[in-house]
């Protein structure tokens, strides 16, 4: 590592500029001076507080699918492309589940205006996804999601291996191909 003694630097900056600036400095400094920590192709699901459909708090680090592939899809009830994507996946979801053991986790970023509608929306469409609500954007920020739809693919070891922003009709085909690759134990080149 090019950044040899973060502790000493930390203390120095702490004395001069206060704790906040120093913490930031360490984080940014580490980014610029040490290559190993740069964004990696495969990385674990970060932890954040979300809610299940009954309003209970849920920690995202517990997301898992018994060694099978998992899709994490950020969506909202007001987002037409998101609904188009989740509906397109829904059409083939049961077959894919049988084939690959896939699980889809749908994370709604709806705020208070629509959050009460999420469960009736999901049930009304017969979607059998695992659904969470992220009204405060905790999970969204932890995964650096800009806009919805934004889709992540997680391998059997719980590592994020691929992500995609936006949805155009037909995009689900590429996603299905990647899910099949993961289920067959093939590696995926991440973005």
């Amino acid at each position, binding site marked *: 590592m090019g950044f040899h003694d973060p502790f000493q630097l930390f203390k120095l900056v702490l004395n001069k500029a206060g704790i906040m600036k120093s913490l930031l400095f360490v984080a940014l400094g580490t980014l610029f001076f040490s290559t190993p*920590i740069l964004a990696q192709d495969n990385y674990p699901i970060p932890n954040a507080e979300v809610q299940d459909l009954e309003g209970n708090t849920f920690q995202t680090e517990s997301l898992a699918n018994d060694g099978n592939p998992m899709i994490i899809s950020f969506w909202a009830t007001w987002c037409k492309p998101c609904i188009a994507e989740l509906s397109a996946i829904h059409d083939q979801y049961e077959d894919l589940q049988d084939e690959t053991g896939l699980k889809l986790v749908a994370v709604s970023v709806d705020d208070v205006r629509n959050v009460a509608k999420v469960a009736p929306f999901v049930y009304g469409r017969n979607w059998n996804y695992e659904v969470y609500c992220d009204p405060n954007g905790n999970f969204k920020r932890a995964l650096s999601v800009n806009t919805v739809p934004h889709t992540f693919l997680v391998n059997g070891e719980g590592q994020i291996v691929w992500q995609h922003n936006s949805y155009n009709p037909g995009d689900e085909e590429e996603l299905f191909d990647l899910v099949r690759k993961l289920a067959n134990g093939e590696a995926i080149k991440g973005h």
Partner: protein
Amino acid sequence: MAFTGAMHAQLLSSPGQIHGNVGIDAQYYTNDTLIGAPEVPEKFRMNAFLNLVYTNNNFRAGARYEAYLPGPLLGFDPRFEGQGIPFRYAGYTLGDLDVTAGHFYEQFGNGLILRAYEERALGFDNPLDGFRAKYTLLGGIRLTALVGRQRYFWEMSDGVVKAFDAEASLNQLFPKKDFGKFRLLLGGSFVSRYQGDQEIPNPDDPNKILDIPLNVGSFAGRANLGYGKFQLNGEFAWKINDPNFTNQFIYRPGNATYLSASYATKGLGITLQAKRVENFDYRSDRNESGNALLLNFIPMLNKQHTYTLPATIYPYAVQANGELGWQADVNFTTPKWFRGKYSTLFNLNFSMVNGLDTTRTGDRQGYTSELFTPGRLYYLDGNIEINQKISKKLKLNLMYMYLWVDRNQTQGLGTSPREIASHIAVADLTWKVAKRHTLRMELQTLQTAQELDHIGDRVNGSWLMGMIEYSLSPNFFVSVMDQWAYDNPVAYFQIHYITTTVGYNSGATRIALSYGRQREGIVCIGGVCRQVPASNGLTLSLMSSF
């Protein structure tokens, strides 16, 4: 220091992770007085940001650099002009304790008394800068305490916010006890704003100065009750007297009530919601208005429309100082035995918003109000949407909507009623031409009578809208959209608003280039929705996450 020691150990124990995202929206403006686009002397403007998030075991730190150069895009608050790091934080989680120093977003319950959040596309960012601690007790009681000042463009709010929230989940508190289908969550919160004294002349007697409360406290209690497929959620909030700019410095206390009931089962979902708000504009500065320094969130209870005409011609804005509203929403899928191969999806939605029935008192109390009697009608929206897959290659969405608005009231244009009734119809067809090749077409119309007493208005009379979008999955799309004010009483305002967009998607990166006229409102093209201001020119949009 134990804290620095712990951090030292963590930094050396493993390298950690850096992730983040970037967003750039830049526009080259061309003059277009016909559509009423304001002149931009610098021709070019840009909104850009870079977020960095560093995580290492239980430690996290992050920062966001923002630049609005030479100034923010049209439609964003000009006070954003400049560049810098308005958001930075560090924090860690240790067992049941979670601490954040610096900037953070937060929401208590339904947000009636506290919601610090960001809505980037709207140019809305009001995080708190200070300290926050969260602690989970006995696995089911969550305590949150915070102190901070709110972001105010490139500065901080004058007021300091202190807040506390407690929430208990019966089912998480006693995980071994069998409650059957019964679920219960209870919560309570307290928020206080401290702001120094100032001399505000009494509007009733300019020789006197108002006696202003320096600490403005608010309280809220909530319950979330579930039984099987039923869910009931309610919150009541109360605020002490808070004379401020938006309520014209009256002493009347404020209150807000939010209720929601839902039922969800396979193929059917029903939501009923109601709210009543009175004098509940709550900010970290008593002198602010608009979108600046809002401390709470009053949800709109109507359908969040996304088709262009219903979403943008007569939009609705919440009246935080007095509103009575309710909504019913039903989602229903026809069972397979009924329709055969492809089921039909129905969404029925009805919402209505009234003002409060108030009587002026003539003193600094402002007014008295009736609890349940609705006042003037502000907004009424009844709509039905049908989604039908026709074949393997064709999908059709149809929507009809009846919309009634008091345009002055809902858009803050004035206090006298300006009533508009309209009928809106939308057809949206997706045609899968071949594998990965898709064509999508939208046709929309809004039918309404011309407002002959507002002859100079560009939004006046009926509209037609057409859109065609071709996408080559997974990378390319191109679209052309035309909104036509064909019925405007002034002939030269019968404008075609034409926009062409080409885009490229790859992984978590998206680049789009559009050219043409944009009306203000939500525009969804090529798979993403965002708020766009009224303008003409060339727009480049780049988004990427890593």
